[in-house]
């Protein structure tokens, strides 16, 4: 049986739900090898968090260059592993780092690449949803290793436990991949809420919050949701950029997306229209976001959200 690489993805030192989703998709194509790129001395700790998903083997590469030289150093390592092990395919999470790494590896291994897949078939056909959610496309890589970046939260993860073997490999990163130097890194503040792209529910606030996210956060917390924001809200400095949903922010595909005081500009829609259910609260009945709403409330978010929060909390107790 052929081997399929996945690049294990970690959030706060824990293997992410996305990693299990990648493994689930990869197992349809072949036997799954999870690649862990770790800082020196942390490989075993990270590997120990990777407990679920149909994974047959784990490769751990420890190297200080991953932290000090950015995307290209990691991409160089993955390219070298592909040259060593000749996997059929490589599946990577579709975020900024994952897509850049995939692109770099595609060049180094002369392989085709498909980004932002929402599904992957057993013959490695990738499904993408494009043009603002209007069109579904199936495509296939015909050259080299099949490289696909997969959008988080789109594939139902097989979370069964595995008994994967672990192999440590040491690599020397190429000089050309070490030309940029990272002098300091500041991880995003998570604030105890779920990671935006992995969350089952996302509650987002826009310009309509007028800078006061308390009602949005309270509703999010009643639902155990992540908090998102429109660009108007992040540009105004009301919420960190790492929470921006949209074309130049994150793409989310939760079970439920709640848009509060967001008009529904095309760039915002680009990041949320593959959500399964969409709820809108907006005081303008003509706001374009209502076109996407499964349930819409025409009203003031500061009046509607507290009632809804109380309603959700009441049902829990």
């Amino acid at each position, binding site marked *: 049986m052929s081997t399929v690489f996945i690049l294990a993805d970690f959030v706060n030192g824990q293997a992410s739900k996305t990693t299990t989703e990648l493994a689930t998709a990869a197992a349809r194509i072949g036997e799954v090898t999870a690649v862990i790129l770790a800082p020196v001395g942390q490989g075993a700790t990270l590997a120990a968090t990777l407990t679920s998903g149909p994974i047959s083997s784990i490769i751990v590469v420890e190297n200080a260059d991953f932290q000090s030289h950015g995307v290209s150093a990691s991409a160089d390592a993955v390219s070298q592993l592909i040259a060593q092990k000749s996997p059929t395919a490589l599946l990577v999470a579709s975020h900024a780092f994952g897509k850049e790494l995939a692109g770099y590896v595609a060049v180094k291994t002369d392989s085709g690449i498909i980004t932002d897949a929402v599904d992957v078939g057993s013959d490695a056909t990738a499904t993408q949803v494009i043009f603002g959610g209007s069109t579904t496309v199936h495509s296939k*890589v015909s050259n080299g290793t099949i490289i696909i970046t997969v959008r988080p939260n789109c594939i139902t993860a097989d979370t069964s436990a595995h008994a994967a073997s672990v192999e440590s490999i040491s690599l020397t990163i190429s000089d050309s991949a070490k030309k940029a130097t990272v002098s300091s890194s500041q991880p995003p503040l998570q604030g105890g809420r779920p990671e935006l792209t992995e969350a089952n529910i996302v509650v987002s606030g826009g310009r309509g919050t007028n800078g006061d996210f308390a009602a949005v956060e309270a509703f999010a917390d009643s639902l155990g949701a992540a908090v998102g924001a429109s660009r108007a809200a992040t540009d105004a400095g009301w919420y960190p950029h790492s929470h921006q949903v949209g074309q130049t922010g994150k793409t989310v595909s939760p079970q439920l997306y709640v848009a509060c005081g967001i008009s529904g500009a095309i760039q915002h829609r680009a990041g949320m229209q593959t959500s399964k259910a969409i709820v809108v609260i907006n005081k303008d009945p003509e706001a374009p976001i209502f076109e996407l709403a499964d349930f819409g409330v025409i009203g003031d978010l500061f009046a509607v959200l507290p009632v809804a929060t109380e309603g959700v909390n009441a049902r829990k107790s």
Partner: protein
Amino acid sequence: MKIAVCIKQVPDSWAEKKMVNGALDRENVDAVLNDLDEYAVEEALRIVEAHGGNEDGAAHSVTVISMGPARATDAVRKALSMGANGAILITDPALASADALLTSKVLAQVINSEGFDLVICGTESTDARMSVVPAMIAARLGWAQLTFAGSVDVEPAQSKVSITRVSEAGVDSMSANFPAVISVIEKINEPRYPSFKGIMAAKKKSIESRDLAAIGISAQSAWSQVIDSQLRPPRAAGVKVSDDGSGGEKLVNFLVERKLI
């Protein structure tokens, strides 16, 4: 300092896009300069302006490089009217369905032949949305990759460039010596509108057109193929209620009905 800015002409973000024969129908939509590339043009201009400018005879220049059909001249012209010095447009019928791998190969080849210090790109094109070309150019050239920059600082005398990378992984401070490939996020600046003077000046600036033979690359089939595409059914119309005090409770009932809570 010689700076190249890679730009792309794309369908207007608001245009309705369609697939024809496995590719985006570009003929029948309004085409504009990819708005994320405007930030790259602006940043290049700000960098040179901070170090003496790019007027004729100055030590610095900004060159726009684009791959696209002849009508991409309009997008190139816009970048020139913002203040870039000149442009190279790679046009060839064999590039009509080029994917990111071929695009990056063509751009890297041109960049390499011109001896630039810095290449600046937007983070993605609003049509294909792959966000891979800057990394691919860095990989092909073996240059430093300084991508997703929320700020850029250049010290021309030291041939050194520093950025803050802003991504889902947080904020990283990164630096490198020239040459480097940079991509900039849309928070980095506010792109200028071309002035009347800029628009008039752009008409006189040269756009050098090159085909594949001129840059020494032979056409190549794509590394991936579209098998099929279908229009998705429109989202079923939802329920819309006006809040009369009961909107919040109705919202919760909807969540219960859908088993979302």
